[in-house]
């Protein structure tokens, strides 16, 4: 910008005297702080959350828990359960346009893709819900439901659940749909993954996934 000689700074002119100016230091520190805060919110949120989780752990959820599906992510995407707790998960699809499912397990299979070789995400090698008793209720806007090996009790007329076969245990909700799942956390401690495999597994591949940490009783 224009060259400002030191002489100018000293001229006894109200406009130029430093006391009546806004502060250069405040300006630099303030904008830099805003810049750093901005960068952290853009890039650093997940790392901050992970760091906090590893330091403080995460609170155990039990009783009624909400699980929201958006395009293409879950809220929350991390939960801690304890073996033997009674849970009621209210799974709700917040999207206006897409159907979403909730599957849980370990180790995704690979799917063959011609130009790209193998890509992750097909189905779980191990389905969390295998042999788990679970009660479904309040179905609304169900796209389909696959019980797989779970021991399912349906509240209300079965037709509302549109029960299908094939694939993992997976309630799939239409946009705006919801479903209650009640169960006792089975004795399967450790870290489990959950995800949404609909639409050629693209939801999962574009980040629609999360984790559940199950603590021993």
């Amino acid at each position: 910008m224009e060259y400002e000689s030191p002489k100018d700074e000293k001229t006894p002119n109200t406009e130029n005297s430093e006391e009546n100016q806004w502060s250069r230091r405040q300006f630099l520190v303030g904008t830099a702080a805003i810049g750093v805060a901005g960068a952290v919110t853009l890039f650093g949120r997940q790392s901050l959350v992970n760091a906090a989780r590893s330091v403080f752990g995460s609170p155990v959820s039990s009783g009624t828990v909400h699980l929201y599906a958006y395009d293409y992510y879950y809220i929350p995407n991390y939960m801690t359960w304890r073996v033997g707790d009674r849970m009621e998960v209210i799974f709700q699809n917040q999207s206006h346009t897409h159907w979403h499912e909730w599957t849980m397990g370990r180790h995704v299979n690979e799917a063959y893709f011609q130009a790209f070789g193998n890509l992750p995400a097909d189905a779980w090698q191990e389905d969390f819900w295998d042999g788990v008793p679970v009660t479904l209720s309040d179905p609304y806007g169900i796209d389909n439901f696959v019980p797989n090996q779970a021991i399912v009790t349906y509240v209300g007329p079965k037709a509302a659940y549109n029960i299908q076969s094939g694939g993992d245990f997976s309630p799939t909700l239409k946009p705006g749909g919801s479903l209650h799942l009640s169960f006792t956390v089975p004795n399967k401690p450790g870290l489990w993954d959950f995800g949404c495999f609909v639409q050629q597994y693209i939801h999962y591949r574009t980040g629609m996934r999360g984790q559940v940490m199950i603590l021993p009783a």
Partner: protein
Amino acid sequence: MAHAMTVPESGHAPRPRKAPMPPVLRAFLWAAIGFLLLNTFVIAVDPFRGHPFVTGPSVVFGWVGAAIGWLLGIGLYDAVLLPLMGFPTRWQERQQGWRRYWEFATDHKVIGLQYMMFAVGGFLIAGGIAMLMRYELMTPYLTIFHYPSNYLTAVGIHGTLMMFSFATVFMIGGLGNYFVPLMIGARETVLSKLSGIGVWLVPVGILTVLFSPLLGEWSTGWRGYEPLAGQDANGILFYYLGVLALTMSSLIVALNLVATVMFRRAPGLTWGRLPLFVWGQVTVNLLMLIWFPEIQTTFVMALLDKVVPLNFFTATGSPLTYLMLFWLFGHPEVYIIAVPAFAIWNEIIPVMAQKSLFGRQWAVIGLVFVMMLSGLVWAHHMFTNLRNSEILPFSFFTEMISIPTGFAYMSAIGTLWKSKVRLNTPMLWILMSMFNFLIGGLTGVFLADPIVNLQLHDTFWVVGHFHYTIIGSMVFSGFGAIYYWLPKLSGRTFNETWGKTLAIITFLAFNLTFSQFFLLGLHGMNRWVPAYPAYLQPMNFEVSIFAFILGAAFLGNILYIGYCWRNGAQAGENPWGAKTPEWFTSSPAPRYNFPVQPEIVGSLYLYGEGTKVPVVTTALGELAATSRATQDPQFDWHDYAPDGGGVTS
């Protein structure tokens, strides 16, 4: 350097006061308050399942609150509203020092520099994102972008910021604001306060688009095609809103410059004598006045589609409506970017050759016809989805538009033929710009041919084509213009060896990067893909290496210009021997530009035997503008000006 007089506000004694908050910080604070107020209000009256604090509708209103808070905080409140309502205000326009670039100003030169500063900021951000994209494309699978939606959001932010905060802004808001008044011998612009507010919409727009991922990834790229946009997460709302802020800012520039050219030309500066650069600006300003309201309306409708929701564009059976409306604006937009560059070529070439401009009327006719035809060709972006019967007419006009575009070349070639031109840094950039745009234009002829287009559309051929046209025209000419006008802007000059070396490196890196885009496109590389079939990897890898060099070269130029701005050697008053009025005042020009109203008495583009100096200022003015100012630091041209220097307020 002129030490400008300050007019103390009469009436109220300067009371002791504590130093005010830096306006930018106050603007951030008020923006945060505005956001919280409106967002909370909307959440309270329109809650969503699960009670999230931010929803689509709430964030739209919150954003409006933030934008208003930002503008009030930056100066709308105490510099415009208070005086308007007749209240006393502490605001005084600062006449010198770096601080005036970080607050509200009414001097078109300060505003012009603010536009350039923000545009360069947008360029660096979007350029940095381009580097990340090229890093991702070095491998055929996902690496630094974990998910394809992250990559697609990056492409969208890159394109949107480059187009709306840099390409449209640097030459028009920046160079246009700075030089149009100077080149027509005007002492200020017509809508100077509005213009001073408008420039602060640029950071609003840049930050809005940049932070769009906070609301969720969006996958449409800069064109926002429906019905895909209707499916995207709320991040796309910030695309609409950011572009709204940026186009509003440019619309204000267009209004202000057109009004200034109409009403503030110096005596003797007839339309027939209007400098070419000003012709370029006026034609694109008219395009902006026609088409920016159109795209803003479209974006508001798309926004309502999303948040209400309505069905303007997402209804089954009407997805082409949005595409039509987008390109109706979109094609003129590319000429808004390119035409000022054509004008710059023929502004700088006659000066460097000290030779009369060849076929001046053709150069102007070319600009005007390009402007008119640009509204007739939009559907050439839609050959793959148009009805067959509509393809040929659009192909016809598209091919015809290259005729007036060629006039810029004709004038340049006629002027350079048998000249003795100084091949210095600005001139080198201009010749490079002519080369690059030639490639952009010729590859466009292939695209204008529908049968070829059906193969090349949406491939990297197109990406190569538009980077050649945009960077070739606007970025290379922009660098040429900045080196050319650096003595005017800063009173300082640059070193030829450094300038040329940087230019050549940039040119080589640019061509090595983007020429290979054509081959990638022919070989089957489609757009918007972070993962691609492996056979395309070797070329992509190598392209990325050149792209990094290109990024570094751009950065090097910007840093070097910044360095010369402060530390370059002192430049002469009119170092290139130009004849346009901006050179007939001190460098940088004082507030109100000219000591006294200059008069134009001859053509600005005639050189050689028997031509005269076309700009006349009175003897008093001559003295004031040149010799006195450089010798006497306390010199103030107001003291010499018969009417008090035009200070009316």
